């Protein structure tokens, strides 16, 4: 009797387990199919968009009237951006595919710049047409290769989940058809890069990297001394010093120390020993000093840098920290790219961080042209609906990554503040920024 009831109970348990296991398996499969489907969607979207891109670039080459060319270029810009988004949704991060992504970006960039240009006044140059032809040919190659992959995916029921698995385990990557297809696409991009740079445009933009660093190269001992000077005179023995690898934009020494709960970190350029990044991390208590006092400390601190004429342009309190942004100025012209940021603890006014990387990266000692238009002329270019409150002369980096001299106007409309830049030689409106407002707090604590 007991044995029989035991048998019954056990069989029920076995059947129950089986049903449960089956359902779990079903659920898991459903999730996998879902993930696979979203990969498939991104992939097929991508091939479609590349197809379209190739066609559109082709027809733009055949176009003659400016009225149809501008919208066409705008269309190309949009499609290349969509194609880039598709790439971002595929598990390709561990696959070398960046040249193709940059290629898509370059197409978009080129199309945007030419689409917003007045083609009546400044039609496409011969070089630009040549570049367009090149883009057409390259996008054709990508299209063909992707179509091939797509065909195989469809006929052999290839799954992107397998690609992901292959990339994750790094196993037999060579045998995966999809991976091979994308590698071929990437390889075909090799020849493209050089022709892009010839025309003088590309995702990299003009060289800006630390052109104007002054000083002699530091030895390790000197670097230690310099680091200690910036890190509160910490004993040079306590500093860990390393040198940057070959991937760095500019050779640097990195020094760091750990003292109880406090740790410090500094990046110094090898040439000249200029501090790029300083960070000191410790527990910060409730604010005791005002943002104004902190800003005075920050001003005093940047006085110790070898940079003259830094002007405080922005201060912000973030919880227990004050963050202050300084701009380099010369003859009352403010250089927006040349920024230095300082972070001050509001509990005792100690400097907790400095970032001068942007300054050293962008700064060049250049002679500025005098503005060609007067302040009044520039003023007349500003939208008449805004009230002009303040004006300055400033240098900014425009869309084309060129440094241009502008009249800067701080203006208000309703309760919003806008910063408007009018080019001081052409009178063009280079840039209009909406200055941020504070954001309402939500329930969460930030």
């Amino acid at each position: 009797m007991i044995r029989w009831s035991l048998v019954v109970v056990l069989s029920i348990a076995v059947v129950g387990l089986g049903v449960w296991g089956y359902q779990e398996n079903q659920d898991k499969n459903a999730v996998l199919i879902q993930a696979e489907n979203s990969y498939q969607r991104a992939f097929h979207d991508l091939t479609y968009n590349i197809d379209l891109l190739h066609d559109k670039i082709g027809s733009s080459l055949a176009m003659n009237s400016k009225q149809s060319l501008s919208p066409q270029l705008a269309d190309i810009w949009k499609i290349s951006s969509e194609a880039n988004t598709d790439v971002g949704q595929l598990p390709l991060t561990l696959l070398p595919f960046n040249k193709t992504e940059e290629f898509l970006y370059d197409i978009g960039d080129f199309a945007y710049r030419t689409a917003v240009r007045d083609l009546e006044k400044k039609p496409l140059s011969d070089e630009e047409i040549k570049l367009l032809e090149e883009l057409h040919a390259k996008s054709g190659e990508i299209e063909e290769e992707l179509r091939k992959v797509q065909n195989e995916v469809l006929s052999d029921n290839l799954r992107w989940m397998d690609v992901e698995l292959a990339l994750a385990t790094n196993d037999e990557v060579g045998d995966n058809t999809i991976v091979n297809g994308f590698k071929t696409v990437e390889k075909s991009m090799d020849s493209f890069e050089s022709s892009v740079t010839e025309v003088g445009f590309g995702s990299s933009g003009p060289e800006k990297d630390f052109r104007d660093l002054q000083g002699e190269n530091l030895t390790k001992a000197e670097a230690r001394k310099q680091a200690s000077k910036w890190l509160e005179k910490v004993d040079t023995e306590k500093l860990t010093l390393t040198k940057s690898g070959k991937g760095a934009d500019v050779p640097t020494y990195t020094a760091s120390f750990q003292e109880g709960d406090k740790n410090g970190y500094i990046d110094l350029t090898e040439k000249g020993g200029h501090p790029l990044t300083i960070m000191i991390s410790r527990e910060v208590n409730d604010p005791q000093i005002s943002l104004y006092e902190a800003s005075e400390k920050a001003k005093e601190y940047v006085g110790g840098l070898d940079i003259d004429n830094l002007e405080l342009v922005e201060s912000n309190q973030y919880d227990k920290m004050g963050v202050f942004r300084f701009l380099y100025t010369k003859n009352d012209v403010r250089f927006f790219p040349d920024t230095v940021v300082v972070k001050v603890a509001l509990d005792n006014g100690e400097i907790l961080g400095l970032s001068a990387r942007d300054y050293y990266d962008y700064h060049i000692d250049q002679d500025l042209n005098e503005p060609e238009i007067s302040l009044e002329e520039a003023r007349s270019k500003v939208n008449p609906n805004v009230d002009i409150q303040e004006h300055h002369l400033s240098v900014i980096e425009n869309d084309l990554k060129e440094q241009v001299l502008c009249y800067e106007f701080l203006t208000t409309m309703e309760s919003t503040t806008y910063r408007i830049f009018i080019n001081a030689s052409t009178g063009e409106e280079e840039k209009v920024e909406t200055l941020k407002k504070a954001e309402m707090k939500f329930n969460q604590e930030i």
Partner: protein
Amino acid sequence: MVVTAGLVLLIFPLADGTWSKPVHGFSSQVIQQGATGDDVIELQARLQYLGFYNGDIDGVFGWGTYWALRNFQYEFGLDIDGLAGQEVKNKLVKASNYDEGYVKKQIQEGKDFTHYGGVPKSQQTKQPSGQSSNQPQGQGGSEGGGQPDEPTAVNVPSGYSQNDIQLMANAVYGEARGEPYVGQVAVAAVILNRVQSASFPNTASGVIFEPRAFTAVADGQIWLEPNDQAKEAVMDAINGWDPSGQALYYFNPNTATSDWIWTRPQIKQIGKHIFCK
């Protein structure tokens, strides 16, 4: 400080009977743009009382408050510098009434309110619309004074919202919570460098959720509750700190499975992570 104490005596509730609470003045700090806190609430309320300031009384000294203060300085013949120093505060306190109890109560109850002089209180308060989403934190400062009240708004770096920062803090915490602080800032900086780069998606969320980009996203560690340090690291990175040296990739040499990542030109190692181009 003596001056401030003296100021309190100067002001008595004026003819306007609706102002019930006695007023007490600012603290001794010079208030400048970007500041947050109690003094800013009072500054905004007083400027609004005089009709210079039409924005929300939220305790954050933004551009709206800045222009209002400058206009006030202009009208009252003071130096126009946008700083609320002692002289400015004296003039303000003299010219305006500040019903601290009323203002603090409205802020605590999360109501939409104004503080114009000569307008009855009943017309200055609106019921919060829908669910009161901006309930203030904590119960500090119930009777005006005592513990300082929290402002109802926060400064956020240009181009980012609190939620963006939260999402990035999640990613940083999931990826680098065992790392030194600098290492966390560097990871946040890599996310931002990727947003800027041509070969990655153009938004922080696009970069974070790119398939296979971050292990913490793949294995769900991104949904751990981040600590304050991770948030601070994100804020530093957004404000311009980049200890990674403009890196686009990083990996842990002990666990990296991809050979390709070793071919990238390396910049430096911070903690367990090697950062590369």
